[in-house]
């Protein structure tokens, strides 16, 4: 199979889109693949079709995504929207499905820009209907003009405040914020404040959001613990402890958030190197200053390589594009270095707030290491206690607990239980998260029908005959 494109980019968020634009600018042919109907990723989701009332609620930062979506309209960029990538191999082949039909394309270099997903928040009752992620509530605003009224937001982190203030702007004030960060987290974060002040505008935005919530009279409970969602067929109430008292708030909608983590399904499936990041409490693929992963065919851009936010993602997308261009000899190594150096400086400034935020809003122990009865694998309904029992039977890694108890075998392929299983096994065995490791991810990265897969047998036969 000859390469169909110079560069294939997986994911059309800020990282993927800016990578595509940069690569095309330097003469490369680009194919960018994305699951959504239009470019934007989760952060700029549906931005090109957004209506005025959405923009009013979602704010100026959201609108910034339009420049990237517009930039994708370029002769050398093929944007395949609404497609699901389900296998990538080391020869540069990408297999995806479009409306029930599977296709294969090959690139000379692949940029993985599959972004982040919200960290799992395994609490008692988190699988009940009516419990969504805070990001889900935001997606409903962005792509469906839908608000969640009388929701209770549970967790910690900037997105919790952002979603709360956006709901406020839409006239659907949340019922309460149940926040898990503690005074101790604040004290731990203070040493990072000076550096964070380099991005004072961002900090100021946070302060303004919190002030807006206060002004609107939205109750905020801080350092909440023992959080449980109650209900039979749907969420009915959130129970928790805060300020030395037990609380119970009735609600049909609970929005969970404990920050976001890189979506490493593709990089894991390729067996690329990863390492555990102790500040962000998740695995990052190993990349160099150019975004180059541990295999020469792949660069990794954006939050998929470590959480930095939209602006960092856009910069890293350009850096990866330059790396790819140098690899396929569209630009010289010297030119790459020169251009990357400039982008690197801006990237560093944009990243200056991260250590402060990551330390101020850490996932609490109760989320990293849930109590025994809590379901951690939503698909196969495996509990934290099950994993601990398998650890006592000698399971030292996630692939052993997977074969003992099916955690990670469901359709989500371990996206929502992988990190939790690693954390529990690390705690049970006394090993590091790196030593414990993670699930072996294999194709299909997302379920496909057998008919779609079987249809590829014919194309492969044809090719063999050629």
């Amino acid at each position, binding site marked *: 199979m000859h390469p169909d494109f110079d560069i294939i980019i997986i994911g059309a968020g800020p990282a993927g889109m800016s990578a595509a634009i940069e690569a095309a600018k330097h003469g490369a042919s680009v194919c960018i693949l994305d699951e959504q109907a239009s470019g934007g990723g989760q952060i700029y989701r549906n931005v090109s079709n957004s209506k005025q009332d959405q923009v009013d609620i979602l704010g100026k930062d959201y609108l910034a995504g339009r420049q990237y979506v517009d930039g994708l309209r370029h002769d050398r960029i093929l944007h395949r929207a609404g497609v699901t990538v389900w296998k990538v191999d080391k020869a540069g082949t990408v*297999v995806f499905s479009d409306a029930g039909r599977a296709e294969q394309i090959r690139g000379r270099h692949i940029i993985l820009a599959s972004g982040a997903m919200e960290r799992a928040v395994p609490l008692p009752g988190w699988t009940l209907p009516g419990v969504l992620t805070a990001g889900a509530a935001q997606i409903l605003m962005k792509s469906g003009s839908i608000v969640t009224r009388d929701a209770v937001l549970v967790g910690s982190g900037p997105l919790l405040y952002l979603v709360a203030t956006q709901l406020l702007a839409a006239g659907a004030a949340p019922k309460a914020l149940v926040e898990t960060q503690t005074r101790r987290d604040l004290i731990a974060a203070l040493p990072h404040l000076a550096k964070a002040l380099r991005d004072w505008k961002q900090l100021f935005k946070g302060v303004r959001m919190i002030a807006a919530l206060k002004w609107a009279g939205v109750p905020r409970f801080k350092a909440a613990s023992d959080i449980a969602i109650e209900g039979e067929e749907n969420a009915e109430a959130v129970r928790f402890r805060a300020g030395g008292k037990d609380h119970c708030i009735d609600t049909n909608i609970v929005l969970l958030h404990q920050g976001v983590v890189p979506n490493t399904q593709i990089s894991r499936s390729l067996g690329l190197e990863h390492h555990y990041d102790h500040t962000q409490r998740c695995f990052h693929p190993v990349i160099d200053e150019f975004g180059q992963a541990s295999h020469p065919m792949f660069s990794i851009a954006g939050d998929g390589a470590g959480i930095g936010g939209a602006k960092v993602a856009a910069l890293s997308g350009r850096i990866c594009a330059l790396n790819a261009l140098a690899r396929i000899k569209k630009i010289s190594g010297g030119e790459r270095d020169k251009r990357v150096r400039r982008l690197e400086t801006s990237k560093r400034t944009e990243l200056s707030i991260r250590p402060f935020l990551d330390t101020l809003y850490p996932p609490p122990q109760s989320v990293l290491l849930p109590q025994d009865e809590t379901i951690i694998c939503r698909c196969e309904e495996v509990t934290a206690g099950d994993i601990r029992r398998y650890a006592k*039977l*000698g399971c030292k890694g996630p692939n052993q607990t997977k*074969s003992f108890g099916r955690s990670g075998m469901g359709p989500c392929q371990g996206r929502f239980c992988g990190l939790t299983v690693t954390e529990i096994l690390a705690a049970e065995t006394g090993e590091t998260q790196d030593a414990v490791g993670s699930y072996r991810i294999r*194709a299909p990265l997302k*379920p496909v029908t*057998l008919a779609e897969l*079987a*249809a590829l*047998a014919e194309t492969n036969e044809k090719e063999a005959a050629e």
Partner: protein
Amino acid sequence: MAIIIIGGGVVGLSVAYGLLKQGKDVVVLDGADDDFRASRGNFGLVWVQGKGENAPHYAVWSRRSSELWTDFADDLLKETGVDVSFSKIGGVDYFIDEVELAERIKSLNSLRDALNDDYPFEVLDHDELKKRVPEIGSKVVGGVYSPMDGHVNPLSLLRALSIAVRNAGGTIMTGVRVVDTQAKDRDFSAVLADGTRIVGEGLVLAAGLGAVGLGKKLGFQVPIRPQQGQVLITEKLPFFLHYPSGTLRQVNEGGVQIGASKAEIGLDDVEDIATSAGLAQHAIDVFPHLGKAKLVRSWAALRIMSPDGLPIYQRSPKVLGAAFMTCHSGITLAAAHARLMPDWILERNTAPDVSQFSEGRFRV
């Protein structure tokens, strides 16, 4: 002193479980999370039909194990609370090619002749098969039913054995790597990567592909090679497929498992599109409605193959008290390994005659 068992897969644990039942102490040494593990990647059949063409003793051995399986599964349930979902209502192999079906019938007939007619199977044409399995597609030309066959949940089996061995007082050390073995007058020691020495009065090498590095020193030839097999599994579907087959079975959790390819590509356990597409096509040929089923997972694992594909059971000609066991059908043979092989390891008169499975057969 314990018997050291190198390898904590289904073969090693079955034998460990059996030895414990004989009142022996065992210590099982098991490898890392990401080692090649056939016990985690296999298809889960307890299968007899078609096995041992030109080697009736293998057909007999497989069948003997299959007959011990009901009791073996019951014991595991009683002792561990784990239901390994063993079912033995017989198996059906489906054919979409007349020539392949004819070849199978010929091979089964010759096995039946060699075994004095004690080898039950029924050849079914399309219509007869459709009465038993209404979901088959028009491409299916016929099939072969045999009451000797069954299937099991192989991962539940692995867990049950692991619990059973511990409950019976055996030791399983996981996450360890054996780098060397030493033996003197039935005093054995296994040296681990961290320098720890595990001592015992006997040694069973049941380390799958890991036996290659350790076997020579103990006096074994270890003529084994990896053979890759790929397997697909669908989302959980409403139950329709009662009979397992060599290539298709619905597991107790509801997914339909599709296997199994054979590729001689060395120590490579990465799944590929061409192979999995072929497996998917086969499933659709047999059961057209599966075309709409979602494939949730696929995997590749490595079989441990001897030159003739049959198990190897060999006592060391060099080191008294050391034994080597390997096979690519550890699930089917688990019951025989647990119930019959301890006597062979302990060199008792009551041991089954497995001399035809020795390494001697490969000597030129």
